[in-house]
């Protein structure tokens, strides 16, 4: 992330240790992951060691330290989700994007993950795409949703390289 953008985020939250999570969360919101360089810069700003910042980030599944897609698809894999057909939904998305769970598409647009309970056992199968939630999924419905994202991306000619955000 550019120095300027990062400084703005840090200034907005402040430099106390307790602001570390909000700062890291906002960086992930803006560019989908934390680069080594960003973590060093945040550490300097908050007068922490880089290891402390990395140690914190690496604990949290929503604070990735490896490159991810612009859109992170998180399909719930709780027992209830499984009973209601989440595996078929996952398979459909996986086929559509030619992407296995844990991977990111070559164009940097999508990452696919399976996650623990996301709080929708009354409407499984469910998934999150960044901070939007989709429930009562079927393979068809999930495919339609992903198609919309693909359309949107091609219309806005999104730069598929998340580091250029």
């Amino acid at each position, binding site marked *: 992330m550019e120095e300027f953008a990062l400084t703005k985020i840090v200034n907005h939250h402040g430099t106390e*240790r*307790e*602001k*570390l*999570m*909000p700062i*890291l*969360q906002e960086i992930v919101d803006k560019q989908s992951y934390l680069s080594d360089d960003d973590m060093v810069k945040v550490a300097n700003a908050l007068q922490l060691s880089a290891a402390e910042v990395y*140690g*914190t980030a690496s*604990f*949290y*599944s*929503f*604070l990735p330290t490896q490159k991810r897609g612009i859109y992170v698809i998180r399909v719930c*894999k*709780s*027992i*209830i989700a*499984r*009973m209601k057909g989440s595996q078929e939904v996952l398979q459909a998305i996986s086929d559509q994007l030619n992407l296995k769970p844990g991977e990111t598409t070559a164009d940097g647009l999508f990452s696919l993950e399976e*996650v*623990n*309970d*996301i*709080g*929708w*056992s*009354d*409407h*499984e199968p469910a998934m*999150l795409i960044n*901070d*939007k*939630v989709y429930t009562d999924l079927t393979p068809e419905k999930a495919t339609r949703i992903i198609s919309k994202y693909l359309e949107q991306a091609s219309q806005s000619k999104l730069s598929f390289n998340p580091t250029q955000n």
Partner: protein
Amino acid sequence: METLTNNSTLRKTDLIFGREHDTLSLLKEALQREKDEIINELIESGLRGRGGAGFPTGLKWKFAKSAPGNEKYIVCNADEGEPGTFKDRIILEKAADKVFAGMALGGYVTGARHGIIYLRGEYSWMRNSLLLKIDDMNTAFKQLGLDFILEIRMGSGAYVCGEETALIESMEGKRGEPRNKPPFPVAKGFNNKPTIVNNVETLVYALLISHLGAAAFAAFGTEQSAGTKLFSVSGDTPQAGVYELELGMKLSDFVAEFGDGDTKAVQVGGASGFCVPRRKFDQTIIGFEGIPTGGSMMLFNSHRSMYHVLHNYLEFFVEESCGQCSPCRVGCQQLLLGIEAIKARKKPASYLKELIRIADTMRLASKCGLGQSVGNAFDSIVEEFKEEIIY
């Protein structure tokens, strides 16, 4: 809120989602009362924490009030990560104002001037709408002359951060690793200041009890499990949803209402709770005298493999263990590998006994409630459904 079928024996109430009261006038009314009077009302009501552990809420507030210092915090635990739970989501969607007013009440009573909602990252879709409501509330507090301000902090996808001391570590910008207790958060919590951590639902009931009175609340439920509670019902049921029911119900009555006619087991209290087989429905009470639950009720019918259920829970624990203490870090993995090995015939069926010993050791030796409760689901599923686990 969903309704029950006509012939249900369960007593369904509508305290939390009832719309007959204006939230701010409830708060205003409470602010006219003496602080100790409210604490006593809560103690008498028998309200116990709705997040799972069941600590008496009035006592918690009393300890926080008497803790020295003028910098205190009240935290709303909205981490709701227990598999099968979603009632806090519905409260925050439909009655967030009552949660916020409950926090303000706790602030007034204990002297905390700062309220923090710790919202799980998986619920970030509701963050903006909550922020708007918080702005309104903060303005209203000012108008009421109450020195209290609310803010939201987000979680980042770690179940263990629902444990109150891990939650505090996380808010301090650290790894969500539970602390040793004591000291408890009411003595040394966020930034080492006295901190009350309460579940979303608990805070709403505290507000309602200040209005309804202890007796009206304790008129529901049983001696040890006073009042009503929200249940998140899911799985093999035609009526998945959130229901407010009287505590102390018999599981058989619950299944008669929510089952699909073929219920073989109910997992009470999520992955860290207990599995009850059909033959025990009749003798199982839902509440602190029987099986307590943070609200998760997962129903399984006879088509479901309990091996898959247990396997799913163990995978969950392996992923969510913070790894800080070895009984839990190693134990979760060994239990998972162990049932896989038995299934694959690489280990004899008798190996299950050893696995149960591991689970029992975890209960004694783990540092926090996560590792301590893995044995709940493990023992109850293995003991009741041995054949399904082995063959």
